[in-house]
């Protein structure tokens, strides 16, 4: 394999990570506010189908993306309403929505199977795309891929560097304290859930109008990405930078599975493509194991020196969820 092939392959890794990035950043924002939107798998599929249908019938790519975001926002609104207003289990409602929206997408999309639709084209950025190496990697992509780079920084800046972002962290971490400080916790949770859902909804049309252009029902092959996005959100420790690292790692491993295929002719492609999952479980384990009680006991029993090393290692990997993730808030 030549260097230029590898560069093109890596550019493809950034490209195909785009939709997952939107899903993960959207979910990260939602969970930061203390709400779990477990519907992600259905959201992506229904938004992919709806976005494709909207783009085909209006002939406008923009309408496709708008439709995807609206679908994501609406599904998130159901999650917010049922958990915040009706006090139902977020996990239960999210799971049902994941199941329902997946089937809805297959049912409503039946007539769109095999229909030729518009496709997002790459737009090279003048000058920047001429830079060796970086040009091919970062500046010869399509608009949504550029946006997928931008959104990482925007989300990080919003969460960690602005006043509303401080409030966002507050309502997910200690809603009672945020409430005392004047935050309308439940209204903010509504807003962030819907915004997060809209961002995640964009993942759908990015798939159906770009990364896996077209609609082929179950054969579109989008089932599963939502669950992956949810896992990466945890891996990312609710921090956009770390989440982005997780997304690119996942995308890179899938590509690696594909190009290593010829080296292992006995192993079917489908097997290598799921190779990231055991790794994902392992990383989830590493991220979480520091929170386990027996780990603390083991650490306490260790000799001073090795304990210090172990603690530092675990701290570096550890990710603790927002303090009130999944816990409803009642203002007394």
């Amino acid at each position, binding site marked *: 394999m030549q260097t230029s092939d590898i560069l093109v392959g890596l550019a493809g890794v950034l490209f195909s990570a785009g939709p997952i990035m939107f899903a993960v950043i959207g979910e990260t924002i939602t969970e930061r506010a203390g709400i779990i939107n477990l519907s992600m798998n259905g959201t992506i599929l229904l938004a992919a189908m709806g976005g494709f249908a909207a783009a085909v019938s209006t002939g406008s790519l923009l309408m496709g993306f708008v439709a995807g975001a609206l679908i994501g926002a609406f599904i998130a609104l159901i999650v917010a309403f049922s958990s915040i207003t009706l006090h139902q289990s977020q996990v239960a409602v999210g799971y049902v929505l994941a199941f329902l929206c997946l089937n809805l997408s297959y049912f409503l999309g039946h007539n769109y199977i095999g229909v030729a639709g518009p496709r997002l084209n790459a737009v090279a950025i003048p000058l920047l795309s001429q830079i060796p190496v970086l040009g091919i990697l970062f500046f010869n992509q399509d608009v949504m891929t550029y946006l997928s780079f931008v959104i990482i920084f925007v989300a990080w800046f919003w969460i960690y560097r602005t006043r509303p972002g401080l409030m966002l962290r507050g309502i997910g971490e200690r809603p009672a304290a945020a409430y005392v400080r004047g935050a309308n916790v439940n209204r903010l949770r509504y807003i962030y859930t819907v915004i997060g859902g809209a961002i995640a909804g964009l993942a759908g049309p990015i798939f159906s109008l770009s990364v896996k252009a077209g609609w082929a029902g179950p054969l579109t092959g989008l089932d599963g990405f939502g669950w992956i996005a949810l896992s990466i959100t945890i891996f990312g420790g609710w921090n956009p930078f770390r989440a982005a690292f997780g997304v690119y790692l996942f995308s890179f491993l899938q590509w690696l599975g594909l190009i290593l295929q010829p080296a292992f002719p006995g192993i*079917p492609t489908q097997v290598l493509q799921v190779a990231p999952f055991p790794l994902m479980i392992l990383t989830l384990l590493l991220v979480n194991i520091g929170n*386990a009680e027996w780990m603390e006991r083991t650490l306490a029993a260790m000799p001073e020196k090795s304990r210090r090393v172990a603690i530092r290692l675990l701290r570096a990997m550890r990710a603790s969820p927002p303090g009130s993730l999944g816990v409803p808030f009642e203002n007394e």
Partner: protein
Amino acid sequence: MKKNFWLTIGFQIAAVILALLFTTLVLLMAGAPPIQAYVSIIKGTFSSLEDIGNVLSAWAPLLLTTAGVLITFAAGLWNIGIEGQVVIGAIFTTGALRLLQDSSMPPGMILVLGFLAGMLGGALWGSLAGVLKTFGGVNEIFGGLGLNFVATAITIYLIFGPWKRPGIASLSGTLVFPNQLWLPTVPVAGFSPWALGLGLLVILIVYLLLRGTLFGLRLKAVGKNIRAAYSLGVPTWQYMMFAFLLCGAFAGLAGAVQVTGVYHRLTPGISSGYGFLGLLVAMLINYQAIWAAPIALFYAALNIGGIQLPILLKLDSSLSGVLQGVLVLFVLLVEGARQRLFEKR
């Protein structure tokens, strides 16, 4: 008390009506005639002995997975990994049958061993999710989801690799087992009374376990308030682990039923989504085992009734899934509305 009972019933009926209204709207959006679609689903479930047999064939594994998740739900666990537990159960059953099919053992004995192997496989996969949860602090939802993907990958690897059909390996699965290793079925209807009996027996066991035993009581205590249960002397992690094992074992049985009673081989889609559907059924019955059998039958019927839709009306069969999902969604929403309106503190 009595007034409350009727109120609840009224709200549940409202939920069903809303679900039907929503589905009708979806049908209209797809440009389909709603009445004809419903009629075709109903007809597809019992217009012939074969249809009824198919429904009963789908009922058995669904009963098993529902029974399994009722145990994990009782312990407060979201065992979404049940889908993979069904798959690994099916793999173990297939493995056992492959190993023993050329031996001189009587076929009945081989089948029994195959079912035991399935139980073992499911329990093993369940315990993995359990270990991740109790010792690794990995949420069972995400551990389970990952394990589901891994289970599917193992299936595909086996079908294309070590267990591939002589000649050409394909996604249609492994070589079909000889007739004597098929679960005996009722003629014409084509369902296995053994599988169905097993499903009903297991759901009965779970009902009794959760209702009348100290184990069930403690399990529910762990699910309701793990700290309180711990301080009252319930060994909490052991109970959670056991719930995973038991659920996995039942899921493995469902996998064994799929291999020996339905497909007679290992296929990539061996679980047929019964694990996910079992979770949905358990939610719809509000985790009350007593309703499991009838509602699982209803959901199995929806699954089978939808099969005719593509042929008769050129609609996608996922309409059944839409109905199954939207029913649970509206039951949850309406229940929330009822609590908010009538149970104000």
